[in-house]
């Protein structure tokens, strides 16, 4: 039966995330944005707060709190610091993917350490220079040897690439056409031949790192293979679909924080408070983010129940990221020159949120997914 209330345990996780955000993230967020670099301490504290394995079974060191709780928590942390949040999102997904596709050895070797922060964070190495949205074009190769596999190739746009302690790496293990020759590997960050690139200089999310990773004759053992050989594509799809829920939750948090900050600023500014255009801009932003949250939670809820949620995740992602960007723009407009000054967090939010329309599948990719689904459902009009 229709019910939109979070249950107690979901609310509890959200509360933990909220106080972590307030106490740990918020005081440091402006400085982190300015100085850049990787937020080691923030993530160590996230591990202590149990936020690195929210949807991972307790037996493996996680919270076992489910996807809805995960989404609520990510929205809370993103209100304070979107940069730390993206590292947090990805690490949570790495832990989920290893839990889901790993064998017993892989699970016990990595998941508890990911949850405890001992591997700093996890990272995905999927994109390549020529194949952003096109896994079929992947060129990184894994060649089987006596002692396991040798990886060769270049990956791009890797969140936490500077510091992650574990990489989930996709590579081609056969010449089978399209995506059928792709396999997945678990590669610890200190593996020789895994060469971390320099962090990209970005518009926003300056407190997270994004790098290339080169694999230069990078040898891994036979136990590095995650799941079956040639079955890497479904792993990527799970990582991406789940990732979309996370990124949508992140964008939502940035948008909500911007609208709230703008409303507070406006309330203290006699010249703006009485302007209908300001009131309406904030009202529309709040409405759109309300709808966005429902879309995000619905996708999370479906995933939690084990039902298909790919289409819903795409809808949640494209709607939430675009509406959150619009909300940040409206917030800045409502505040005027102050909104464009780094002294106010909405300025950072505007830069941070912009990438959510790009990573984990651009808005364009989501629209392709959604329109394919429509064609299927309404084939005959």
């Amino acid at each position: 039966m229709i019910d939109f209330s979070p249950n107690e345990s979901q609310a509890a996780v959200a509360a933990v995330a909220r106080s972590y955000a307030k106490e740990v993230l918020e005081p440091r967020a402006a400085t982190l944005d300015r100085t850049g670099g990787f937020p080691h301490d923030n993530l160590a504290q996230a591990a202590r707060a149990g936020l690195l394995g929210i949807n991972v079974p307790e037996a493996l060191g996680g919270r076992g709190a489910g996807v809805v709780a995960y989404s609520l928590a990510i929205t809370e942390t993103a209100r304070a610091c979107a940069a730390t949040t993206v590292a947090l999102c990805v690490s949570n997904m790495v832990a989920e993917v290893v839990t889901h596709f790993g064998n017993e050895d892989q699970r016990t070797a990595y998941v508890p350490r990911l949850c405890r922060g001992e591997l700093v964070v996890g990272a995905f190495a999927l994109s390549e220079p020529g194949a952003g949205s096109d896994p079929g074009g992947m060129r990184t190769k894994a060649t089987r040897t006596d002692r396991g596999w040798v990886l060769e190739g270049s990956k791009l746009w890797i969140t936490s690439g500077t510091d992650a302690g574990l990489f989930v790496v996709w590579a081609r293990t056969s010449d089978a056409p399209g995506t059928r020759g792709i396999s997945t590997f678990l590669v610890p960050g200190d593996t020789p031949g895994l060469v971390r690139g320099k962090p990209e200089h970005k518009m926003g999310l300056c407190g997270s790192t994004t790098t290339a990773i080169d694999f230069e004759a990078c040898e891994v053992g036979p136990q590095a293979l995650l799941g079956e050989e040639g079955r890497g594509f479904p792993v990527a799809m799970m990582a991406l679909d789940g990732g979309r829920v996370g990124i949508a939750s992140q964008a939502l948090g940035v948008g909500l924080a911007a609208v709230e900050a703008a409303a507070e600023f406006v309330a203290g500014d006699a010249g703006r408070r009485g302007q209908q255009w300001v009131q309406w801009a904030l009202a529309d932003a709040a409405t759109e983010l309300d709808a966005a949250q429902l879309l995000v939670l619905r996708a999370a809820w479906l995933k939690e129940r084990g039902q298909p949620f790919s289409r819903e995740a795409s809808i949640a992602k494209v709607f939430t990221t675009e509406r959150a960007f619009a909300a940040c723009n409206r917030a800045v407009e409502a505040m005027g020159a102050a909104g464009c000054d780094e002294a106010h967090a909405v300025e950072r939010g505007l830069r941070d949120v912009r990438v959510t329309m790009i990573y984990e599948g651009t808005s364009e990719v989501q629209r392709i997914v959604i329109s394919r689904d429509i064609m299927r459902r309404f084939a005959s009009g």
Partner: protein
Amino acid sequence: MDFDLDEDDQLLRDTVRQLCEQSVRPHAGEWDEARAIPAAVRDELGRMGLWALRQPEDEGGAGLSTVTACALVEELAAADGALAMLIAAHNFAGLAHVAAASASQPALAGELSAMASGQRPCAWALAEGALGSGEGALAITATRQGDAWALDGEARHVLGAAVAGRFVVFARAEDGPTAFLIDADAGGLHVSAPLRTHGARAAGTAHLGLQGVRVPDERRLGAPGRALTDAATIVALRELSWAAVACGLLRGALQQASGYAQQREQFGRPIASFQAIQWKLADMATGLEAAWLLTVQAAWRCDQGRPLGEAAARARTWATGAAVRGCSEALQIHGGYGYTREYPVERALRDARQLEATAGGSATARSVLADAIAERLG
């Protein structure tokens, strides 16, 4: 947390869908043209309980939750926006107002079951803008005469007035704005010819004129002077039902456009294979999902007894806006054919536009939202 309708409610929705496919959708174009919905159809829907969706079963209603009632309104709107608006206004405004008032006015209870047939729906005649600008917007006066009232004045652009059997009207009285239930055949009551509206043409919008109409005090709704306060609750319900109508219009248009795009060929391939068309469909579908979740959430809040105003206003602004944009895109996807009345998308666009502008338009809803934000900030 749960996003699914109960199975029972899904079954009920499927039944209404079938009814719509058989008895509504094929005729919606004719009714639009004729600017009227046949009484027989209204009767048939009455037998399904659609004119008393949320009334308890022992009072002749269908006894449905607000969530389920909205789901059925959405189904109706996917087939015919005018019919859906008529039913929504009757259930969520006229009937809801009388039902709320009947708690303290037992004489009204008898009216409720009579209103459930749909033969003569109940029109709710609040003047546009009255909630924002107060009783100054009311162009009807009520003068006490013993145990009755004399009403004079007019209410303009009243949805359903042309077919209504009863009217809820708002009048300026000595104690302030006061509401009354009036029979359509009351002496001195005059309904104009149906207006030629842009959309919802079959919903019988007309002006209502009152000249010395005598109304017994027992048909007063709520306390004298309190009518606009009471109306705020009803307006929220009506906004919610408008949101459900918008969802149905948009879904219908999306289905039409998607089907058409897969059949129609250009440059030797279905136009659905062009990215520009895919994008339009994807944006319609995304806007629709957002609209529907906002609507269900608001309906659920209502069922939970939580304050409805803000949630309903959000659902209404987003859903009606998305419906206007989406129906226009659906028309565009149909090209020249979409501009003809052979295809239902032009009617959906007109209905959506009418819905968006009706009863103060989204402007009223946005004011509710702006006030709520201002209030939270102190």
